[in-house]
């Protein structure tokens, strides 16, 4: 269980996520949705321990420390870097069962596993291709192959289907369902509400303030969506200091 208790995550003195409480149950499949600037990616940063909460705390079971896999947005990766598809996938062994870490050399077994992962995402035969020569969809498949190797109990995905065609999205969604079926906790930041309704049992609707968190059908109601769209997510220059220690957090019963 990953528990958030009155969590505020800030960039300097400005909250990106404001007083959020709730839980990601083990084995749950949750979508995080909300307008741009709602704090969705920041929340993933908080879950990974990259951003320390300004208030409240994020509690993870000790066994999860260092075992959270993360899919960054494609824009955060330099695709001009001279590295091959196989090299990127092999990075999945950094923390995976093989545990190569920062400096151990890969063996034939790890190489074979990386090739299997590439085959599983439909990219067999492209091992030696430079990542700069791939389409956005192919590159996303490479990153999913790396997640396969990481074999993590918790998987965080930041906008995994942005600018990805329908066929690739369907293939990658099938992988997500496979992970969910294997009992892994999956959290994905998404924008396509129809996709969320069709594939994600639970949803967190965020607009800096938490709007609703629970079963998807109850969260994605017109009233909640309207509140999220009206909630200003830009920063006000003269906003007063937040004096609220622990506000009542709106939450839809599970």
């Amino acid at each position, binding site marked *: 269980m990953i528990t958030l208790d009155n969590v505020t995550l800030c960039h300097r003195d400005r909250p990106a996520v404001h007083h959020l409480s709730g839980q990601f149950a083990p084995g749950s499949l949750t979508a995080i949705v909300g307008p741009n600037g709602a704090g969705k990616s920041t929340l993933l940063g908080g879950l990974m321990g990259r951003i320390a909460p300004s208030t409240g705390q994020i509690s993870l079971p000790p066994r999860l420390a260092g075992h959270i896999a993360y899919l*960054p947005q494609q824009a955060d*990766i*330099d695709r001009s*870097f*001279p*590295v091959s598809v196989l090299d990127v996938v092999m990075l999945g062994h950094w*923390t995976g069962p093989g545990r190569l870490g920062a400096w151990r050399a890969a063996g034939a077994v790890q190489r074979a596993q990386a090739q299997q992962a590439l085959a599983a995402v439909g990219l067999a035969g492209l091992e030696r291709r430079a990542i700069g020569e791939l389409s956005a969809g192919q590159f996303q498949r490479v990153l999913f192959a790396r997640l396969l190797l990481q074999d993590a109990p918790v998987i965080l995905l930041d906008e995994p289907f942005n600018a990805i065609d329908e066929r690739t999205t369907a293939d990658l969604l099938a992988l997500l369902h496979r992970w969910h079926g294997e009992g892994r906790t999956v959290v994905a930041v998404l924008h396509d509400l129809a996709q969320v309704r069709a594939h994600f049992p639970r949803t967190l609707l965020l607009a800096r303030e938490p709007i609703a968190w629970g079963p998807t059908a109850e969260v994605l109601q017109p009233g909640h969506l309207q509140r999220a769209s009206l909630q200003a997510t830009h920063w006000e220059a003269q906003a007063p200091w937040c004096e609220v220690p622990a506000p009542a957090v709106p939450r839809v019963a599970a």
Partner: protein
Amino acid sequence: MTLLASLHAALVQPFVEFGFMRRALVACLALGLSCGPVGTLLVLRRMSLAGDAMAHALLPGAAVAFLLVGLSLPAMSLGAFIAALAVAALAGGVARFTAQREDASLAGFYLIALAGGVMLISLRGNSVDLMRVLFGSILAVDDAALLLVAGVASASLLLLALVWRPLLVECFDPGFLRAVGGRGALHHQLFLVLLVANLVAGFQALGTLMAVGLLMLPAIAARCWAHSVAQLSVIACAIAAACGYGGLLLSYHAGLPSGPSIVLLAGAVYLVSLVVGTRDSLRARFFTAHRHRVA
């Protein structure tokens, strides 16, 4: 036979005849070995300007040591090392804690360092000393300098073997490195120390102004030929070593300062690579046949 003999006289004889040439050659080859991978990382991490600014910061550090203890290699190397690390820390701090762009603050520090260094050396010392520190001298490569260069090269290669993977991953996917607890900031600091150590090792032969030349130019020339990071490093090593050898010969035969000779040769290799290289070159861009495959 006379051709062979004259080739031998031109290419080998100087090293047979003079101990200082042999020491300079070994220093350049050792420097080339570590400059290949360190320069490759410098370019891939988009830190070429930072490397240049740090190289200029060697000058005031070496100058302060020169003023205090005279022409002493260990003291000048230590002074240069501390000053370059200080500029790296200052530029990093300014970029992190102020709205200043990092390239602007680097250029600022580089000018301050250069002017300060020249001023300090001109306070005491003559123009020969100044030229020697600015542009390097193969005569300066004594046994102590050789030990310094070989030590830095060996330590660089050993340390790089340990931190190579995180340094590379941080270049293209820093989010992944953070997610697996790769301690990118620590590796960045280590790389800065490595970079400064290599600059200090290079400044005896190349001079402070051009110490970054043997790091940068072979690496960007290699980019016109290599398809992977491993190829980049190996080709950069080979170019750096070859330019070290060729530059020393040029310096010996034409009576030129060694620093500009080596760096100009590396510059020529870069320009030729830009024109005829197999990738990212003018030839690849304009002179390949306009054909396409069916799929």
